[in-house]
C-alpha cells in the first residue's frame, strides 16, 4: 500500500487507536529533518501545479499511454504528457473526442500498457459510455476529471465539486467505482500513483476527481525520484493458454489478466459474459458475474479508503470535506479551536467507495456534522444516508464558482454550536 508523507490512512488510525494530528506533521517533519532523517537536499524541491503533479505521478506509476481531447481546466495534463511520454517510449495521442480517448485508453490497456486520460465535465459525460465498458470488461485505466461548474459547458475556468455523483453513477448499469480526490499537490502525485495501483490491482477504472483550485494551484513538492515505492502491475496468468479462464471467479474476485498478443487468445466484450468471456444471458452466470464485480471491491474497502482526521477525538462539531474545501475546513477548525469551540475535521481522499465506517464514527463522536461542498449537496446526501439520526447534519452548498472560504465554514460552526 502506498504510504503518503502526510496522509495517515484511516485504516492506520483505526489500527493504532491513536489519534494522529496531521497539522503537527509539518512540525514533526521539521523535527525529523533536524534529526537528519529526511534531509531535504536543495534542488530536489519543485514548485508544481496539481495537473503537473498528476503527470509526474502517472509517469512514476508506469503510465505509458495517454489519449485525450483538449478541455479546460485539464489541458495541462495533455500538454505535458505530449512532451514527456515520447521521451520514455510512451505514446500520446490527441483523439477526435473524449469517447475516442477512453476507447483508445482501454485498447492500449488491453495490449498491456498502463493508460490514462484526463478531462473535465463535458468530456467526462462523453466518457461514461466507455467507462462502463472498462467496468464490465475489467480493464484497468485511470480517468482524471478536473471538475468545472456545470451542467453542460457551465463554468469552464471556475472550480466546482459537482461531479461526485456522476463519478459514481455516471455510466449506466450496476457497477462498482473507485474515486479518489486530492487536496494538496503532494496528494495529486501520491493519489495518481495510488489510482494506477488500485486500477491494476482490482481491474477496475479509477477516477481521480480533482477540482480546479487543486489542479491549477502550485505548491512545493519533493518527488521521490528513484526511491523505491509500491507500484502494482496487473497479475498475469501463470497457467498455459489452454487452461486460461479470463473471467474466472477466484476467491479475491479478481481474475488474472493476459495482454493481447501474448498467446492467450481470449474474448473481451461489453456484453455480460461467462467466465470464458463469451456472451451469456443465463441467469445463474449473469448474477454471479455482477456480484463478483461488486465483491472484488467491497471486500477490499480498507485498501482503497484513505482520508485524514484532524482533532476529531473530542470534537463537538466535525466537518467532513474533500478537495480544496478540506483546506478551508482545516483553517476553520483551527480558528474555531482558538475561539474555544471543539471542532474537528474528517478529510476524504477516497470519495467512492464511500467511507461509511469512518463517517459513522464521526457522526457518533460529534453530535454535529457540517458538510461543506461546492455543489448542491452530493456527499452530504451520503452522510445523511448513513446518519441514522445519531447526529445533526448541516450543509454548506456553494455553487457560484468560487471556493468555500474558511470564514464561511467558521460561520456555520459558530451558528450550529
Amino acid at each position, binding site marked *: 500500500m502506498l504510504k503518503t508523507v502526510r496522509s495517515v490512512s484511516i485504516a492506520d488510525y483505526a489500527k493504532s487507536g491513536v489519534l494522529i494530528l496531521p497539522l503537527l506533521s509539518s512540525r514533526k517533519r521539521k523535527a525529523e529533518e533536524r534529526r537528519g532523517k529526511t534531509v531535504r537536499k536543495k534542488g530536489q*524541491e519543485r*514548485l508544481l501545479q496539481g495537473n503537473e503533479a498528476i503527470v509526474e505521478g502517472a509517469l512514476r506509476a508506469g503510465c505509458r499511454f495517454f489519449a485525450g481531447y483538449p478541455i479546460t481546466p485539464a489541458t495541462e495534463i495533455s500538454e505535458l504528457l505530449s512532451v514527456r511520454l515520447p521521451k520514455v517510449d510512451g505514446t500520446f495521442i490527441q483523439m477526435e473526442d473524449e469517447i475516442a480517448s477512453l476507447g483508445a485508453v482501454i485498447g492500449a490497456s488491453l495490449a498491456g500498457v498502463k493508460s490514462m486520460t484526463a478531462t473535465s465535465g463535458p468530456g467526462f459525460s462523453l466518457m461514461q459510455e466507455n467507462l462502463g465498458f472498462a467496468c464490465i470488461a475489467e480493464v484497468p485505466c485511470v480517468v482524471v476529471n478536473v471538475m468545472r461548474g456545470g451542467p453542460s459547458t457551465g463554468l*469552464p*475556468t*471556475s472550480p466546482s465539486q459537482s461531479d461526485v455523483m456522476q463519478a459514481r453513477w455516471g455510466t449506466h448499469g450496476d457497477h462498482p467505482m473507485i474515486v479518489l480526490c486530492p487536496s494538496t499537490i503532494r496528494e495529486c502525485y501520491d493519489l495518481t500513483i495510488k489510482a494506477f495501483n488500485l486500477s491494476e490491482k482490482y481491474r477496475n477504472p479509477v477516477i481521480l476527481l480533482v477540482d480546479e483550485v487543486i489542479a491549477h494551484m502550485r505548491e*512545493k513538492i519533493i518527488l521521490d525520484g528513484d526511491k523505491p515505492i509500491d507500484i502494482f502491475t496487473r497479475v498475469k496468468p501463470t497457467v498455459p493458454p489452454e487452461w486460461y479462464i479470463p473471467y474466472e471467479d477466484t476467491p479475491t474476485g479478481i481474475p488474472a489478466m493476459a495482454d493481447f498478443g501474448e498467446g492467450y487468445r481470449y474474448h473481451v466484450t461489453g456484453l455480460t459474459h461467462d467466465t470464458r468471456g463469451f456472451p451469456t444471458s443465463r441467469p445463474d452466470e449473469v448474477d454471479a458475474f455482477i456480484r463478483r464485480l461488486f465483491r472484488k471491491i467491497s471486500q477490499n474497502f480498507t485498501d482503497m479508503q484513505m482520508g485524514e482526521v484532524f482533532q476529531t477525538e473530542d470534537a463537538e462539531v466535525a466537518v467532513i470535506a474533500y478537495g480544496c474545501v478540506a483546506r478551508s475546513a482545516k483553517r476553520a477548525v483551527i480558528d474555531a479551536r482558538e475561539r474555544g469551540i471543539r471542532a474537528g475535521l474528517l478529510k476524504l481522499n477516497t470519495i467512492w467507495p464511500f467511507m461509511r465506517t469512518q463517517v459513522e464514527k464521526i457522526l457518533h463522536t460529534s453530535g454535529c456534522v457540517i458538510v461543506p461542498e461546492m455543489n448542491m449537496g452530493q456527499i452530504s446526501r451520503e452522510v445523511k444516508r448513513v446518519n441514522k439520526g445519531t447526529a445533526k447534519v448541516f450543509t454548506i452548498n456553494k455553487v457560484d464558482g468560487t471556493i468555500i472560504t474558511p470564514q464561511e465554514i467558521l460561520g456555520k460552526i459558530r451558528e450550529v454550536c
Partner: protein
Amino acid sequence: MSYRYDIRLSGSGGQGLILMGIILAEAIGLHDGKYVAQTQSYGPEARGGSSKAEVVVSDEEIDYPKALKLDLLVAMNQKSCDDYYMDLKPEGILIVDSTFVKQVPIQGAYQIPFTRMARERFERGMVANIIALGAISKLTPIVSPKAIEAAVLARVPRGTESLNRDALKMGMRAGQKAKKLAASSVVSLIENEDT
C-alpha cells in the same frame, strides 16, 4: 507562532501575472525555503480580461490556499486596483503600475511605472512583470533579491537571461528609490528610473 503572508498580483490578461506569481512562489518557496501556495483565477481570454495570481506564504503547511486579507497587493491596472485595495490589511503594502493606475485609492502606495519603464528601456512592455518583481524584492520583506534573481533566471526562456536580469535590476533600483522617497514622506511617484 506561525505566520501567514498573503499576496495578490492583479491586472489584465497578457500582463504576465500568472508567470509573475509562479516566479515569486518559486523564489520564496524554493530559494528562500518557506511554504508557499500559488493560485490564480482567469477568464476565457488569453489577452485582456481580468487576471490575478495569488501567493500565500507561511512557515508551515498552508491550509486555505487563496489570499485572505492582503499583506501585499500589486495592481497592474486601474480596475484591479479599485477592485482589490479593500482587501489590504491596514499595514498592507500596495504597489501599482503607475502607467495604468492614475488614481491611487490609499495613502502610502508605491507608484512605479513598470510598463512605461519596460517600453522605454527595453522596447517591450512584456518585461513589466519582471521589473515589478525586482521592486517587490526591495519593497517587501517577503522575498530576497537573491532569491528572486535565481527564480527569474530559472524560468525565463534561454537567451533572454541578460535582458531579464537587467529588467529585474531596474525594478530593484526603482523599488529602492520608492522606499527612500516614502521614508522622506514625499509622494512616492517615480517618474523615471534615471530621474
